[in-house]
């Protein structure tokens, strides 16, 4: 196993551990902090593959904007939710996980290995020089601004 795969496994493993922290924690505030940690490590996997634009988008928009609002909301409404999942679901869940894991493990045995996907070759400037993609980005930014304005109007209308 190469060092890249080990590093990727470590990052993905920490992301999964943080996500388990969301489930285990009973306080909404700590759950939101664990959720932010999970998303940061998901973004770090992008950085590992030299996809820095996606890393910046996830960290700035998802963690920086939406995540912080979520943390603020969770800090405002700190409550301990009552669990409504029965422990009897653990057996079928474990069985399903075993079947899926065995299917993934046995897939290369019954199927010949496919060609290796190779390295990721992505340049942001090549992406932005494509007019259609640039128009899509402009359109999305305009839509988000309209969404923000409508949310603002909704909030002002609800207050009055």
């Amino acid at each position, binding site marked *: *196993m190469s060092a*890249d*795969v080990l*590093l990727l*496994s470590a990052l*993905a493993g920490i*992301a*999964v551990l943080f*996500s388990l922290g*969301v*489930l285990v924690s009973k306080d*909404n505030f700590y*759950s*939101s902090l664990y*959720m932010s940690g999970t*998303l940061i490590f*998901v*973004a770090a*996997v*992008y950085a*590992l*593959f*030299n*996809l820095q*634009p*996606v890393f910046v*988008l*996830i960290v700035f*928009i*998802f963690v920086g904007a*939406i995540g912080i*609002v*979520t943390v603020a*909301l969770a800090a405002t*409404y700190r*409550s301990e*939710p*009552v669990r*409504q*999942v029965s422990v009897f679901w653990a057996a079928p869940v474990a069985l399903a996980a075993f079947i*899926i894991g065995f299917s*993934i493990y046995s897939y290369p045995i019954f199927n010949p290995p496919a060609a*290796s*996907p*190779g*390295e*990721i070759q*992505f340049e*942001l400037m090549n*992406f932005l020089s494509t007019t259609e*993609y640039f128009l*899509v980005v402009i359109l*999305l*930014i305009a839509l*988000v601004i309209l*969404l*923000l304005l409508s949310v603002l109007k*909704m*909030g002002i209308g*609800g207050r009055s």
Partner: protein
Amino acid sequence: MAALDVASISVLYAASFAILFVGYLTAISSKDVIRLLISLEMMFGAVFMALIPLFSVAAHTAFGIAVITIFASSGELLILISAIVILDRQKKDIHTAVITIGGDQV
């Protein structure tokens, strides 16, 4: 830069499935809408992780999909945050039990 071989793709998909699964578990065990919001964000994180292998096949298309997904999911979460604030204003409660019929009665 790390190369994307079969082992890396397996790790990515396994981690993505695990985070999605934990997100589902958190969603079905949540009793208030804040926890529901947190679980939704985690599910989107799992989707972002599952998108990485597409970059090795069609990098520009994958980046376009990633940008659209990030903007769309952020807008969706923004609407949910607004809905939480309005729910709290109207019902003075954020527990999912106060939502009687879907989201129509909010």
